[in-house]
């Protein structure tokens, strides 16, 4: 394994920032969720890389990643259900138009 740890970290950082950009710049609520998925994956890359580079016998990193999977699945299921529910009532999935909480 001749890849330095920092490569993984930089890749994860870049992925995270792209995801962040997606979350902040996309109009569509589904696209925002896509961005969140990217960010979660960036986190997971970090977790697994640290697991591999620290002490592979301690499984904490992988276990953490698995729990992130579970949380991501739950988040997507509920998030998409909410979006569809909102769409059904308000006929829009543009996050900016869902501004019932204004002021």
């Amino acid at each position, binding site marked *: 394994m001749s890849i330095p740890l920092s490569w993984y970290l930089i*890749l994860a950082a870049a992925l995270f920032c792209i995801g962040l950009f997606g979350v902040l710049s996309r109009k569509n609520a589904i696209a925002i969720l896509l961005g969140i998925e990217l960010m979660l*994956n960036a986190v997971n890359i970090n977790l697994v890389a640290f697991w*591999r580079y620290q002490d592979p016998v301690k499984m904490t990193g992988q276990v953490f990643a698995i729990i992130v999977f*579970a949380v991501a699945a739950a988040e997507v299921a*509920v998030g998409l259900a909410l979006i569809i529910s909102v769409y059904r009532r308000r006929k829009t999935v543009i996050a900016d138009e869902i501004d019932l909480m204004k002021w």
Partner: protein
Amino acid sequence: MTADRIIFLLTAGVILGSAIMVVVTRKLIHAALWLVAALFGVAILYGILQAGFLAVVQVVVYIGAIAILFIFAVMLTRKETLEKGTQTRPNWWLPGILGLIILIGLIILITGHIDFNRTAEQIPTNIDTLRLLGVALVSPDAFVLPFEIASVLLLAALVGAVFVASGKKE
């Protein structure tokens, strides 16, 4: 430049390219599919990191379930996605700048840390990380409680999603 570095760079290129496509592409269904590509790349990274189980689970969970869910959601809100015009918000440059600043800052921090430049040792052949992971997930000394709670969370999300999305039953 060794083989694994080449593979890593190729994968990283795929991941970042697809990720950028996810956030800039106009058609949402394409964005969802680009997400699949990016996640597939991440799965390959897990493979390089010798976390085979995670790689496969990544494919099963993300591509087999989450991406499909996304595609379904896009299809169910189709009118919106077919709408012409930009898919980004008017002040998209602000998050772009923010993201760049954060990225640069993180890169400075990461490269500045001496400990992050090392490479990994070989995993000893007598260690079966898959078995260790299995034990860690169900051992009371390790992570059985978080694991169980995660499953409860999934169940709750399942019920909640069904309830929210099913709408009113008249």
